[in-house]
């Protein structure tokens, strides 16, 4: 009776592959937004599977904040080489130099919000009409209503109240000149699904996700990694801790958790037992209850 049946990861994979193929069929210049984090790595892996034995027919876009983990950059370049895929880099530093974006100042300054400017500029410059991202609906409240095919107006903005209804598996990518879409093939995946999938498929991920010794400082309930961009405040000090990261982003706001999970199996076990969401360690979401929603409307990822 159960002969013709897919388990939940196979079904989620089939759904994501279907969506990636729709993107390539419906748009002229689609691209994958590649952050170096596990979700965009999974999306890239799915794209590899969707178009095999052809190579991935979408370029990768990396928005470079200039505040990177070295490991992320090394990983990115290796992945680009291995898959023989085109890489487009949008630089936040360039946006600042060109006066398109202003550096935040103050104690919690970060370049996270500036990414939006660079992202929209990059999309426009390369005439990208569909930017495929690894966002998931379980990540954050504002994402729970996001569509698979999410329409953006000519200013790159999202109008959460006026989204196109999305029914069955029919995706409407029609748009006017200057508008674009964000597409989220792994919308229906949870953090647990992503980790289980990485384990099942044995997908390569940056070493930062595994527990390792690192110089960190405890701030806002999280362990912030050492980098030249962080100034210690009074009472703070650098310490060596065994930590790992649950998400990867700008090094100035990505906090780690104390952990001994140094294999994929141990990470899956740890995530299964986890008591806080992965975004809980991200400074950008702590700026108010609707921080994510406000950024998304502006055109953030």
């Amino acid at each position, binding site marked *: *009776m*159960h002969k*013709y*049946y*897919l*388990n*939940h990861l196979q*079904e*989620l*994979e*089939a*759904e994501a*592959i*279907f969506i990636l*193929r*729709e993107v*390539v*069929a419906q748009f002229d210049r689609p691209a994958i937004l590649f952050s170096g984090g596990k979700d965009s790595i999974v999306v890239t892996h799915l794209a*590899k*599977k*969707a*178009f*095999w*034995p*052809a*190579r991935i027919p979408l370029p990768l876009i990396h928005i470079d904040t200039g505040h990177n983990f070295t490991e992320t950059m090394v990983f990115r370049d290796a992945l680009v080489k291995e898959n023989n895929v085109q890489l487009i880099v949008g630089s936040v530093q360039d946006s600042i130099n060109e006066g398109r974006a202003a550096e935040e100042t103050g104690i919690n300054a970060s370049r996270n919000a500036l990414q939006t400017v660079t992202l929209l500029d990059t999309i426009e410059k390369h005439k990208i009409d569909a930017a495929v991202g690894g966002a998931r*609906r*379980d990540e954050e*409240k*504002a994402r*729970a*209503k996001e569509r698979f095919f999410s329409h953006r107006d000519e200013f790159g903005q999202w109008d*959460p*109240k006026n*989204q*196109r*209804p*999305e*029914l*069955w*598996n*029919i995706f*409407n990518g*029609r*748009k*006017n000149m200057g508008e674009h879409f964000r597409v989220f093939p792994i*919308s*229906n995946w*949870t953090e*647990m*699904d992503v980790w289980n999938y990485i384990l099942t498929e044995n997908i390569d991920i940056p070493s930062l996700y595994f527990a390792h010794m690192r110089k960190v400082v405890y701030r806002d309930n999280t362990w912030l990694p050492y980098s030249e961009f962080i100034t210690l405040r009074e009472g703070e000090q650098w310490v060596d801790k065994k930590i790992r990261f649950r998400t990867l982003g700008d090094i100035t706001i990505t906090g780690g958790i104390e952990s001994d999970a140094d294999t994929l199996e141990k990470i899956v076990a740890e995530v299964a037992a*986890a*008591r*806080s*969401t992965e975004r*809980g360690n991200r400074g950008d979401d702590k700026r108010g*209850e*609707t921080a994510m*929603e*406000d950024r998304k409307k502006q055109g953030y990822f």
Partner: protein
Amino acid sequence: MELLRFTTAGSVDDGKSTLIGRLLYDSKSIFEDQMAAVKESSERKGLDHADLSLLTDGLRAEREQGITIDVAYRYFATPKRKFIIADTPGHIQYTRNMVTGASTANLALILVDARKGIVDQTCRHSYIASLLQIPHLIVCINKMDLVGYDEQVFNNIVEQYTEFASKLNVNDIRYIPISALNGDNVVNRSANTPWYQGATLLNTLETIHIGSDYNHIDPRFAVQTIIRPHTNEYHDYRGYAGRVAGGIFRTGDKVTILPSGLTSSIKSIVTFDGPVNAAFAPMSVSITLVDEIDISRGDMIVKENNQPNVSQDIDVMICWLNAKGPRTGAKYYVRHTTKEVKAVIKEVVYKMDINSLQRKEEDKEIKMNDIARIRLRTTQPLLFDAYRKNRTTGSLILVDEATNETVAAGMIVD
């Protein structure tokens, strides 16, 4: 572990948010930081308990108005299954949202307030579940604590609903007496309802048989895109990429390509993980054929002795989703499987009164949230099945040619 997609519906205050919050909470799908945020918000509002319904409240405007106005998706898992909830509000735009949520669901949860019994909203939601051919329905009779866990109250509602449901087209309906607030029969069997012998809600969700929800009889494969690697190794490779919409495809099978009618046989069914012997819904694969045939996106691979309908005149039950109703003679893009064609609404046959389930033959002006039977004429033939036979090849959407908005959802009638 299997995936079960379900939708929830109920009138305002029937306890839908509380129920979802409880399912998430009791299945340990709520994290400490999410719970902390909910507690904080609850305190700020002056509540003395954590309002679990805040967990399922998404956007700022909605939080301000204290209502949910769109479809939101929630996730939880137990060791047995992973669940996707399409949470649709009972408020404004309810029909359109419920239709959207119902379109991908295997199961619908319908909430009834034990004190009120079956109300208009219950009937509407049930009708939509039936129209969208959700295979399984669970009627949760909630707030049993407020009626003293009285068996007679439960039985009366079951009887009332059973009678109403005889007019619907749903085979599998179950009834569960619950209290979302106290947790009776949600995750744990309740000592307050010794007269109830059935399974708890979570247990039902975990064990209900969904293996036969897909059509494994009529082979349908709509081509999405053609994969041509142009490498030395795969010089002549031509893979037709798509997702199986029905039936089983096997290597060696004789197939017919529509609309051309040309025939060939399957050389291989390709996936990144290696060739597979059989492909079935909802698998995403690539099919290669023995013969070189001109095939493009929107074409369909089927079997000679089992073909879909091919026609330019199509009868559809639609739900209108847009604030602007259709203009007479207006043209739309029809999106159906992987094909897009233009179409005109030839005729509105009738509108449905979804409270009385009566047809309205006089009033034919379609407005947002209306359900109606219409006749479409397309510029090119569609390859389709009746929606009741196949939810993929039987469904379509209408897209406004001026605004590009998705304005209607359609289910093809025989």
